[in-house]
């Protein structure tokens, strides 16, 4: 075993490039799936609030599926399973345009949307019933009440859970490695295979992941503090 030598790793430009690409791809995948998840979560919530019992059950089924099936299996189903059902031309196009990353983003985004929508829903349920009544008594319509009175409070209620799940989403980006996305964990394994400097490589990657996770958590705390309603308990 060669001695612990962090700089030997950094001195090699090839490894640095691989590491850097890995980091970039992790961030891109995480951000893209977060955006997809948030947008979809709002849609799911909106559908759930409609009076249609069928719509509500559909959303419940969606959430239930994504919470009970392991994320890795979901990714495999997308990349190995559903991809094979697509028309040939589309498969070809995808293969040339980072199919793995695309399916990783879709898989992770759809999965986290379930969690985000449940967080928002809990946040909404925590808003006292009197708020909706007051809004209706003043003449606000359903959408107006939601937009000006209920959702601002619901989002504030849901923030701790949303931040937690954002950290989960970020960590889940490492699962994409199993379907061939060259993100950070994948890069780590590649570098390890080539340099045998396992400890140093793992350490750097761990510190990077930890750093970003803590950054997200700190950002979340900051956001919570700034949006805190003055005088609230």
């Amino acid at each position, binding site marked *: 075993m060669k001695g612990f030598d962090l700089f030997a790793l950094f001195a090699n430009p090839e490894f640095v490039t691989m590491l850097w690409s890995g980091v970039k791809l992790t961030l891109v995948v995480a951000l893209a799936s977060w955006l997809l998840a948030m947008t979809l979560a709002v849609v799911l919530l909106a559908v759930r609030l409609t009076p249609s019992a069928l719509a509500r059950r559909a959303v419940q089924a969606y959430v*239930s*599926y994504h*919470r*009970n*099936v*392991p*994320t*890795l*299996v*979901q990714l*495999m*189903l997308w990349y*190995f*399973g*559903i991809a*094979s*059902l697509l028309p040939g031309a589309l498969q070809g196009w995808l293969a040339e345009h980072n199919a793995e990353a695309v399916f990783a983003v879709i898989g992770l985004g759809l999965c986290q949307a379930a*969690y985000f929508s449940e*967080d928002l829903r809990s946040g909404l349920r925590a808003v006292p019933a009197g708020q909706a009544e007051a809004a209706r008594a003043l003449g606000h319509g359903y959408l107006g009440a939601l937009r000006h009175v209920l959702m601002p409070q619901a989002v504030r209620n849901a923030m*701790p*859970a949303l931040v*937690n799940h954002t*950290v*989960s989403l970020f*960590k*889940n*980006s*490492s*699962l994409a*490695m*199993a379907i061939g996305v060259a993100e950070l*964990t994948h890069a*780590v*394994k590649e570098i390890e295979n080539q340099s045998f400097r*396992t*400890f140093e490589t*793992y350490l750097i*990657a*761990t510190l990077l*992941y*930890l750093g970003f*996770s*803590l950054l997200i*958590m700190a950002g979340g705390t900051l956001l919570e503090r700034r949006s805190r309603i003055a005088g609230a308990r």
Partner: protein
Amino acid sequence: MGSVIDIVRDNWLLLLIGQYPNGPLGGIACTLILSVLGIVLAFPLSVLLALARISPWRWLSWPATALIYVARGVPLLMLILWVYFLVPLLIGHNVSGFVTMLVTLVLYEGAYLAEVVRAGIEALPKGQMEASRALGHSYLGAMRRVILPQALFNMLPSMLSQFVSTIKETTLGYVINVPELTFAANQINNRLLTQPFQVFFILAVIYFVVCWTLTWAATQLERRIEAKRAGTAAGRAAGRAPVATPTLAAEP
């Protein structure tokens, strides 16, 4: 759809117990054993970590908190790689993927369960500890005889849902060739090659059934506990609202 039935019929044994007896125990059996062992061994660790975290001695609480934050901030996959690398170094010879996965799960779930236990302890009224101390119990004695029994009982539903998370986490064993269910499914897919969607569909369904049933059981348990806590018919009605569970859910 007919092909789904065929695949299940031809491969159900592989999915159930892997290649045993021609290989190690695999499939669903391996998944469940790994999960049960993982959570059972993680449990005492989690109690210790939780107690350390809330202890008034900084030399204990700071490292414990740091450990928990590290487990929260690092992907499970990364942790698996670490354990796979370090354990053979520490004990001098190679270990199987199964053992590696088990150790990882114990550490990971230990940290997450520690937060669950901590929430359970902190949810109890302060009067419980005060009354115990007033009666002369030491801090640890009060913990052991009064606080922990109540906290752990109340947190049973949360722990059951952490067990479900553990089952989902075992799928990562695939990456280090642990012969659990996902690995078995991939073996089938690599053999058949022409029906990937059906194979992974079956895989998803199996996990869904197992996890959904356990989650349902956890909800039922939650209601019973709520009713027991309130102690009256009103409590049973109140039991429809879920117990405050920590938002920290481990879910790869």
